[in-house]
């Protein structure tokens, strides 16, 4: 019906029409509302689990709690590495509109180095913008006060308390304990990011690095409810507390360490003291050293460059990595090898006339004394450090047997001490020379290897290990620095299980006795005579002096006339001679001779090692003793 046919209004019809439409409209509305209800049902039933999860992940942030780092003590409980409260500046980038403007403004209040800013920017790239990032560590009280006054001008910048590592004894233990530093990109590769989520520092060197796993502990977690801006609103249960790292007790005796370092009087070198009965390292000194404390919170690059460029190389751990020519300190080991291999009997003698010749060769290998020492047996050869005796022994032994025997004393490979970065030195052998130079081993090289010259390179650690093996009658005890660990503050420190000694390198105890007698003769009548004066126990030792530079002429020079920088000087010793409880090596980079410069340091270490009452007596006695230094030492007598 078209509308123009019915122009008049029909109200009754319209009312009827309306009711129909109202009903239709209501049905449509109901249908739509049911549709909407189904949509709600779909979201709230079908996808409820999914959205619940997303709601929780929206609001719940798992925040790692960094564990407290374990402390490090010496064997008697002297604190070597501590955690102290400090304050740092943290920035939440999200809340900063213009970062560089803010940093410029902040610089006027708190000094910021370019290093701080650079490190901050690296961290900023690796974190979310709502995570706060340390900008300046270890604020001074004045800086904290100045910032507090101006804090209103720096929204998003906060002063946050934290625990920082401190090394109360500073440089004395820098080479043993090492230091921690801020985690950098290199560290990220070797640590588990989950374990270190809340940790800012990691062990970089020394014990701190080697026992990182023990020291670090286990992180805890707390769940925090955050709002849409990631700001924490409240902490939820449960909270898993972090498990602090273990406290470590080192084998080092801080008192001995201190005495040893002081004995160097600043001269570059290294010293080690070891208990030969179990391989415990009692002292480990490398001079010069450095203060590890600035490294913890980021050393200024200028200061770091100064340390790197220092000609005395304070950052070098000489005990661990120093490359020394062992020289005559090898002679007791050579003697022991000669006896063990049946090449020499103690009473066999050699005539020293000042020069040794390999049969059929005209080249002479010199003694240190013009005209030689005359006819000497093994004890005298050790005591007087007679080169000819050991030239002849090495020649008879040959390089293969020489290097095989020396390998049993641990030369040529790292000792495996619990530190990172140890050098292995060089043990001369046919194999080594072929690998290094692709040349055969010449007899002349074997001869000088017999007096610890030539290709020999040892670390003080290797030397003290060999001395310690000899001292304990041939039984090798692995060298180590960790004595005990403490799992919790109130727990008793638990001693580390003793490391199993390896098989003795000495088959016949009488052989040991001969070498021991030779080394005793060194300090009583030999090159280091007088060293034993006033000491309650018998000392057995051996000097070593090696040229730092190869000689350019063939002229014979008396060592005592040499300029003092010319020689690397060494001294090895153990005491009491019959029942050794301490073995020592002292290496100096420059000195007149082993007896003159290195032996007195060893004596000071022994003195410090004595228990209190014995030490007092010994000190009084040694006032009168004189360590004579005119003992002659061998020089490298020729290159093949």
């Amino acid at each position, binding site marked *: 019906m078209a509308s123009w046919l019915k122009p008049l*209004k029909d109200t009754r019809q*319209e*009312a009827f029409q*309306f009711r*129909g439409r109202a009903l239709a409209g209501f049905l449509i509305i109901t249908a739509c509302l049911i549709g909407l209800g189904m*949509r709600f*049902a779909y979201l*709230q039933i079908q996808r409820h689990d999914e959205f619940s999860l*997303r709601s929780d992940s*929206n609001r719940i942030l798992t925040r790692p709690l960094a564990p407290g780092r374990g402390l490090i003590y010496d064997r008697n409980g002297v604190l070597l590495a501590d955690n102290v409260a400090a304050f740092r500046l943290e920035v939440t980038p999200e809340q900063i509109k213009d970062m560089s403007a803010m940093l410029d403004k902040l610089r006027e209040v708190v000094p910021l180095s370019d290093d701080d800013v650079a490190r901050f920017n690296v961290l900023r790239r690796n974190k979310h913008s709502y995570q706060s990032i340390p900008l300046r560590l270890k604020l001074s009280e004045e800086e904290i006060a100045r910032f507090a006054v101006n804090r209103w001008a720096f929204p998003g910048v906060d002063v946050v308390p934290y625990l920082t590592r401190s090394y109360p004894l500073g440089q004395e233990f820098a080479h043993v304990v090492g230091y921690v530093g801020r985690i950098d990109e290199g560290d990220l590769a070797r640590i588990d990011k989950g374990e270190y989520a809340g940790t800012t520092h990691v062990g970089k060197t020394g014990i701190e690095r080697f026992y990182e796993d023990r020291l670090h502990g286990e992180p805890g977690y707390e769940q925090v409810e955050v709002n849409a801006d990631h700001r924490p609103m409240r902490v939820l249960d449960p909270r898993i507390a972090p498990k602090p790292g273990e406290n470590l007790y080192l084998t080092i005796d801080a008192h001995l360490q201190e005495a040893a370092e002081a004995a160097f009087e600043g001269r570059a070198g290294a010293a080690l003291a070891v208990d030969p009965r179990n391989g415990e390292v009692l002292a480990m000194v490398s001079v010069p050293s450095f203060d590890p404390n600035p490294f913890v919170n980021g050393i200024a690059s200028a200061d770091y460059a100064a340390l790197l460029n220092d000609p005395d190389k304070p950052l070098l751990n000489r005990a661990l990595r120093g490359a020394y020519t062992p020289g005559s300190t090898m002679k007791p080991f050579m003697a022991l090898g000669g006896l063990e291999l049946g090449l020499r009997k103690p009473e066999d003698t050699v005539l020293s006339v000042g020069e040794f010749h390999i049969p059929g060769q005209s080249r002479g290998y010199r003694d240190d004394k013009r005209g030689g020492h005359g006819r000497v047996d093994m004890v005298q050869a050790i005591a007087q450090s007679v080169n000819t005796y050991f030239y002849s022994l090495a020649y008879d032994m040959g390089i293969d047997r020489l290097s095989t025997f020396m390998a049993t004393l641990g030369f040529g490979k790292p000792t495996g001490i619990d530190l990172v970065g140890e050098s292995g030195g060089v043990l001369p052998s046919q194999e080594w020379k072929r690998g290094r130079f692709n040349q055969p081993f010449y007899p002349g090289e074997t001869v000088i290897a017999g007096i610890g010259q030539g290709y020999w390179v040892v670390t003080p650690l290797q030397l003290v290990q060999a001395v310690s093996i000899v001292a304990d009658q041939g039984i090798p005890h692995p060298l180590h620095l960790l004595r005990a660990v403490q799992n919790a503050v109130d727990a008793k420190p638990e001693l580390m299980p003793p490391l199993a000694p390896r098989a003795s390198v000495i088959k016949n105890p009488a052989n040991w006795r001969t070498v021991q007698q030779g080394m005793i003769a060194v300090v009583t009548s030999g090159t280091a005579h007088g060293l034993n004066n006033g000491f309650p126990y018998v000392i057995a030792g051996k000097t070593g002096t090696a040229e730092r530079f190869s000689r350019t002429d063939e002229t014979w020079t008396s060592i005592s006339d040499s300029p003092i920088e010319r020689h690397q000087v060494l001294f090895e010793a153990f005491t009491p001679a019959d029942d050794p409880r301490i073995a020592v090596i002292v290496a100096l980079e420059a000195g007149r001779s082993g007896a003159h410069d290195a032996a007195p340091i060893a004596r000071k270490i022994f003195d410090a090692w004595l228990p209190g009452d014995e030490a007092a007596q010994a000190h009084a006695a040694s006032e009168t003793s004189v360590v004579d230094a005119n003992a002659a030492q061998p020089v490298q007598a020729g290159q093949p």
Partner: protein
Amino acid sequence: MLEEILARIRHRLIASLRKPRVDLPLICALLLLMGIGLATLYSASDLDRGTVLAQSLRFGLGFALLLLIARIPPLVLRNWTPWLYAGSVVLLVAVALLGEGRGAHRWLDLGVVRFQPSELLKLTMPMMVAWYLNGRPLPPGWITLGAVGVLILIPVGLIAEQPDLGTALLIAASGAFGVFLSGLAWWRIGALLAAFAAAIPVGWHFLHDYQRNRVLTLLDPEADPLGNGWHIIQSQIAVGSGGVWGKGWHHATQSRLDFLPEHTTDFIFSVFAEEWGLIGVLLLMALYAFIIARCLWIAANAKDTYSRLLSGAISMSLFVYVIVNGGMITGLLPVVGVPLPLVSYGGTSAVSLLAGFGVLMSIHAHRKLVMA
């Protein structure tokens, strides 16, 4: 003189008690809805009494307006209609010329209060359509339809230009419902819908970029979860995590921790759904359905075509609010600023809605006169 006045007042009082001017079931449902609204708002505003107090004052103002309008006979309203319509269109033009607001010109500052003239149209538009159709033979033909179309499109165009597409659509719908209820032939409705569908691609070109984004985001909210998709995703998380029974009052983490934007205004339904779950949602929708049904019942009993169409259109507009807001928070419809009636925080919307119910009450109160 004084006695006379007192007698009149007494007479009025007795009369109003005997024959209430308001529909009690509807008033009860509205009060219940407002109560729910205030409770949800209290929770959504994180227990901010100030917000709830402000909203209560608006409810009070709106309710006073409801009672006032309920006293005005529909005949008077009908006579005022063209002037009210013209006045509100003039205000819209004024807004377009000197309005203010962030990004969009919606507000008119009257010195004392600022208000959106577009809210007036929510009432004057159905009034005008009803007024016009009341004078035309029904069901309407194409000519009538054309004329109504002009009446609708002038203000809708002005509002869409502000731009406020949500309100424009609501107002267009309230006019269209008038036409629908007037008995427009189904085939003509079909033809209009087809034409509308065909016009969508053209209309797309007239949309602002942000409006297009809202539509595109609806199709794939996860494409930009922290930007355009944020509202839709967070709202769905809120609704979905509520489950069947809800998290409980003031336990809506999505809103309390500010993940859900606009959680006291356009997205308050999400908060309600998170706190009360599917059960709460279904009960709330049932309450709306009851209100709409009751309003349509009043409309069906109205005395003349004007009253019928006006009250019918107002009732059905209420439905549009609910379905658009519900569709928006569940990710079925694009994000448009449509409040949930009497629950969302916001003054003008509450007042204009209650004024609309006032019109319904007036029509209800004067129905008997028609029958007589």
